[in-house]
């Protein structure tokens, strides 16, 4: 992109590292709490460690069934993110390109559906799920999440598609591709950074969602945020900040690993130079 001098580059990198550290400070603090013994957590002045402990990681690990709940969360997040990406990206493409009457209105309505307070949605969803005998099932949670992910996907992908020049798929269609071919062979590869970013966002939203999971599950399909809320509600043992921080660290890890794994797709769009000549 905009080329900067050697000095400007160094300053930008320094700034980026500094900003990351500032944003990570609360997370590092959480990480430190997760290895602290209770008497080190609340001290004046703040103290580093008098001794290191793994108790916080082990104490609730089995009781709160962290592993199966982690698996549930992965299934629910991956399922809802993939369904939403497929449905939402195609809808976003249609809304960005087709000269349909009312496309803007449809796009607006889809997004405006997100204006509904979730508290208003969750009670009727629970009643419907109960009537269909679908409470505490993956599919119920996945569909509930799809409803709130699809509008975001449509809206973000529509913006990313709009920033691609229409000549791209026009050229492909002249070369004998149909709309679908042009979409999958040209548009999807060219908007990979947008697709990957939107996918990461969907995974994160589904990963940390609490309200729907709390109401729609009770045992089999319980996700990590519900388990965390359970630990937080356990006031019998006083403030459980050590275990909460430990579970917090454990839930962050998979997402960071996933984000690192998909980083290589978050590269310069392939549209570069495609419109040249």
């Amino acid at each position, binding site marked *: 992109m*905009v080329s*900067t001098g050697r000095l400007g*580059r160094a300053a*930008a*990198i320094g700034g*980026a590292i500094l*900003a*990351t550290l500032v*944003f990570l400070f*609360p*997370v590092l603090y*959480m990480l430190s709490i997760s290895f602290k013994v209770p008497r080190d957590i609340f*001290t*004046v*002045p*703040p103290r580093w460690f008098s001794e290191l402990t793994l108790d916080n990681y082990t104490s609730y690990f089995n009781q709160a069934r962290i592993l199966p709940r982690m698996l549930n969360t992965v299934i629910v997040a991956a399922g809802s993110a993939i369904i939403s990406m497929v*449905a939402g990206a*195609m809808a976003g493409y249609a809304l960005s390109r087709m000269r349909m009457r009312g496309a*803007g209105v449809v796009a*607006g309505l889809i997004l*405006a559906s997100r*204006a*509904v*307070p979730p*508290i*208003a949605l969750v*009670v*009727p*969803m629970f*009643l419907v799920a109960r009537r269909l005998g679908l409470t505490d099932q993956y599919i119920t949670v996945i*569909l509930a999440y*799809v409803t709130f992910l*699809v*509008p*975001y996907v*449509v809206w*973000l992908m*529509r*913006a*990313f598609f709009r*920033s691609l020049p229409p000549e791209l798929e026009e050229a492909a269609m002249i070369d004998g591709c149909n709309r679908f071919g042009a979409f999958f062979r040209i548009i999807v590869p060219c908007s990979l950074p*947008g697709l990957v*970013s939107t996918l*990461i966002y969907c995974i*994160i939203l589904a990963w*940390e969602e*609490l309200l729907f999971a709390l109401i729609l599950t009770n045992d089999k399909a319980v996700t990590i*945020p519900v388990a965390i809320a359970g630990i*937080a509600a356990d006031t019998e043992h006083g403030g459980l900040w050590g275990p*909460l921080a430990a579970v*917090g660290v454990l*839930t*962050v890890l998979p997402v*960071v690993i996933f*984000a*690192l794994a998909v*980083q290589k797709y978050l590269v310069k769009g392939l*549209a*570069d*130079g495609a419109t040249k000549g």
Partner: protein
Amino acid sequence: MGPALVLLAGMLLYPIIYTVWVSLSDFDLATFQPSGWVGLRNYQAVLADPGFLQSLKVTGVYLVIALPLQMVLGFALAFLLNVEWRGRGLLRALFLIPMVVAPVVAGGVWRMLLDPLWGVVNYALGLVGVGPVEWIGDPTLAMVSLILIDTWRWTPFVVLIASAGILALPTDVYEAARADGAGRWRILRHITIPLLVPVVAAAFVVRWLGAVKMFDIALAATKGGPGQATDVVNLYIYEKGFRGLEFGSASSMATVVLLITMIITYFLFRLTRRLENRW
């Protein structure tokens, strides 16, 4: 197009209609069903409820300060993170973490950091001679804290989307502009900003809709207090519905919030479209 619409209609229209229906009825807690029709009585009560009006005001203040702050900060950071070097992938991944920390845990960690007695923030301020600051206890500072925590949590979203938008900028246009002798400022103003407008607008609208619904962080960090200083409207509705079990008035409030949000969102759409067409 089709599948998305069917899903949305099924999973959204029914709940909305149901909510409006509950808002016009008494709610029978024994059967967990709406019972008698009461017309607009719930709405009258809600609109005369000073607590509800106060929570709307609090939400407005939070939105007006937090959203522009997060957008500007997010795009600035995305440009910084875009400079090519080996570590930028790692930084981008690490930058996602604040969004992933469960709200209950994030709120708790921030409460600890900001605690007036043994919090790390006040300890650091004390070292440079700034006296103990009542971050959560003072009404104004509680709002500052809430905005601070929300900005910490959601600026990474703007960074994520902005990074993708910046990556998709076509380099050949820049080469052409530079060949024509355009300066950095002119390139920013006439190429970068116009090309990014759709992505900026989309990120803003998505963040706006997320922020309107914010309540988990307020619940975990400040519990809406002190008094009602950080009692955002969704927290107020949540407390009414799930603590007070007043589902009738909770539903009326939800409907009122829905209406207000729809109207503002509509104007945001119009503004977005005008911006997109202008450049």
